[in-house]
């Protein structure tokens, strides 16, 4: 931390602040978000009753909002898992106040993203066929395996550092009641013995190492869902790393948004400082540049040749009907955020939050521009098909987006928003480092 080490009680108070009886604003926001989620549920029920015909999808553009959402939301979950894991493994000392929020965002976004393959199915009632009759050669099966493994790992990654924190909550409460029982369950008999500390630290290192290849594999197989076809724009060998980088990019943006929101709502200014935002913003710029590099290398090599279908796709994207969206992404979602962070004048918390918002919205747009135009372009001589989403698709998409902050708000109502355990560890290191320096 800064000049003064924060005291134990201060940290605990701040971490558990969202767990106090919620105010009117909390209820209002939760109500609003719940309404959106409920509306999405109604829309989905309508879709289940009437079939996918209630969407705007057709015989050529058979994937639309849902598949874009699948890629987008799972990408969002990356920010949490990857940043938290990388920061842990590299021992970045400033990570402590961020990890809990990052990991919770990862799980929330992943739960939402993992719902979309099922939402998109024509026969969701037969989903178990993927297990009963699963074909190892199908990218859909790869996806199901990768997403479920990654979900399990993300949950463990969230729950491990929660063990000592659940113990703190457990100790602060009377023995009885459901809530106490849950804390007791999650704390796994944590007493804070040196042996327990050792085991926890080791397990966390292992899962942090594991989660990186798992996360990489998830977005790689998602990319191959497209890459194994001959569709223009999809038929690309760089899709896997391109998708992985894009996922991290949007994920870090999402983490910044979550940090900004909870920092303001629960007055965590003393813990989440401009420094945190600046560091994350630097990571964001690096990822933005990487993404830009991938895009240039993809479009330059294809655009140089302008080969048949791919050439037509590039024209559609850059000059045709979709050009406004494409350039909106390039300027709004990629270049503007880089500029906002690069210029010292706007490299402030509001400026960085705005950049992150542009990145997150821009990356959704980019996912859409990957999924739909690749299908809209004909492979045999006929015309372009235009896809407009129906209200059902829009409602489900908005509901999905609302579900993430809703899950986070409810989660932090019951669990510390900052990782008390890691904050205290970091403080301890800080103090001992100072003591060593003084001696």
């Amino acid at each position, binding site marked *: 931390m800064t000049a003064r080490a924060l005291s134990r009680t201060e940290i605990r108070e701040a971490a558990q602040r969202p767990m106090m009886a919620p105010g009117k604003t909390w209820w209002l926001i939760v109500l609003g978000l719940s309404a959106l989620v409920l509306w999405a549920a109604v829309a989905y029920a309508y879709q289940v009753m*009437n*079939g*996918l*015909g209630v*969407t705007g*999808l*057709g*015989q*050529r553009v*058979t*994937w639309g909002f849902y598949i874009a959402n699948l890629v987008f939301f799972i990408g969002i979950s990356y920010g949490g898992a990857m940043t938290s894991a990388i920061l842990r493994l590299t021992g970045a000392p400033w990570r402590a106040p961020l990890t809990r929020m990052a990991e919770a965002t990862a799980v929330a976004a992943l739960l939402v993203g993992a719902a979309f*393959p099922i939402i*998109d*199915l*024509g*026969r*969701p009632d*037969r*989903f178990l*066929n*993927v297990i*009963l*009759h*699963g*074909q190892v*050669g*199908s*990218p*859909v*099966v790869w996806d*199901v395996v990768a997403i479920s493994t990654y979900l399990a790992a993300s949950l463990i990654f969230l729950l491990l550092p929660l063990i000592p924190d659940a113990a703190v909550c457990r100790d602060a409460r009377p023995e009885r009641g459901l809530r106490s029982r849950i804390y007791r369950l999650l704390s796994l008999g944590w007493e804070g013995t040196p042996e327990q500390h050792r085991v926890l630290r080791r397990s966390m290192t292992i899962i942090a190492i594991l989660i990186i290849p798992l996360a990489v594999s998830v977005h790689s197989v998602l990319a191959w*869902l*497209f890459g*194994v*076809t*001959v*569709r223009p724009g*999809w038929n690309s060998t760089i899709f896997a790393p391109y998708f992985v980088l894009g996922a991290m990019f949007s994920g870090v943006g999402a983490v910044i948004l979550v940090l900004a929101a909870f920092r303001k709502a629960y007055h965590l200014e003393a813990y989440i400082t401009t420094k945190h935002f600046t560091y994350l913003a630097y990571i964001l710029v690096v990822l933005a540049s990487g993404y830009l590099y991938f895009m240039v290398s993809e479009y330059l090599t294809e655009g140089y040749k302008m080969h048949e279908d791919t050439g037509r796709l590039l024209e559609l994207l850059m000059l045709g009907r979709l050009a406004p969206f494409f350039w909106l992404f390039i300027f709004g979602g990629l270049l503007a955020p880089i500029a906002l962070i690069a210029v010292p004048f706007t490299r402030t918390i509001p400026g960085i939050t705005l950049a992150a918002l542009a990145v997150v919205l821009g990356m959704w747009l980019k996912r859409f521009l990957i999924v739909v135009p690749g*299908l809209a372009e*004909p*492979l*045999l*001589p*006929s015309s372009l098909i235009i896809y407009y989403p129906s209200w059902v698709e829009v409602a489900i998409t908005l509901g999905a987006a609302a579900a993430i902050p809703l899950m986070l708000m409810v989660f932090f109502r019951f669990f510390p928003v900052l990782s008390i355990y890691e904050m205290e560890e970091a403080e301890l290191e800080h103090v001992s480092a100072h003591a060593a320096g003084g001696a």
Partner: protein
Amino acid sequence: MNQSDTEDQEDSQTKQHPVNRRRFLGGVGAMAGLAAVGFIPLTEIVKGESPPAHTSTARSQPRQWAFVIDLRRCDGCKKCTEDCQKVHSLPKDHEWIKVYETTDEDGVKHFMPRLCMHCENPPCLKVCPVAATFKNEEGVVLVDQNRCIGCRLCMAACPYEARYFNYADPPKPAEPFDNPMPEFPVPQQKGTVGKCILCVHNTSMGKLPACVEACAMNALFIADLNSDVMTNAGGETYKLSRYLSENDAYRLKEELNTSPRVWYIAGHGQDLEF
């Protein structure tokens, strides 16, 4: 199909090889009984293992269906599409055989009917997560609509846009279907993918596919690779390999190595490459 192989075959056989159409398609009726026996285990097809031994009524070698479209004859009437949709009780946007229309620089219209290519190496089959798409022993690519989960990856994977998703319940069939088979349901199932089934319900009874029967221009031919014969609604019967080589037959998107079983004879100077 290997070009030199077919030519060798041709030399070793009699030059003119007239085959009676009735004889060609007859006897296939025995296959109906075989089909009724049940499925070939899908796993075996996916693994590429040889199908199980036939009953004594079946021929030693199954038919290997193929298709020839003579574009010189097609006038774009779309009767094939119409009849196909009627027979299989399909909605209007399901064109299992679809007639593509192009206009060249001189303003002349060209037509190209496209059905499922029944590829030897079908990309749709590879990507199916539940092996709902399979190839029967006669080389016809089919969808088990009782298993399909409707993920539609096969539609994205098909380079010929030959697959259709049942977004809604299909129209009610006018009359009960005369030869229901386990391979495909009529009417189609909502929420699953459908496609050209090369009228296995007809060929198994020695009848022509609906589109071939419908073609007044006699542009569509059903063919069998094993007996090297092709025939159309007009009763014209040719030796397949010779017809293909003499008329410079081509297949769509040869470069993708899907090895389609549909051959085209180029028409009025239209572009061979699509």
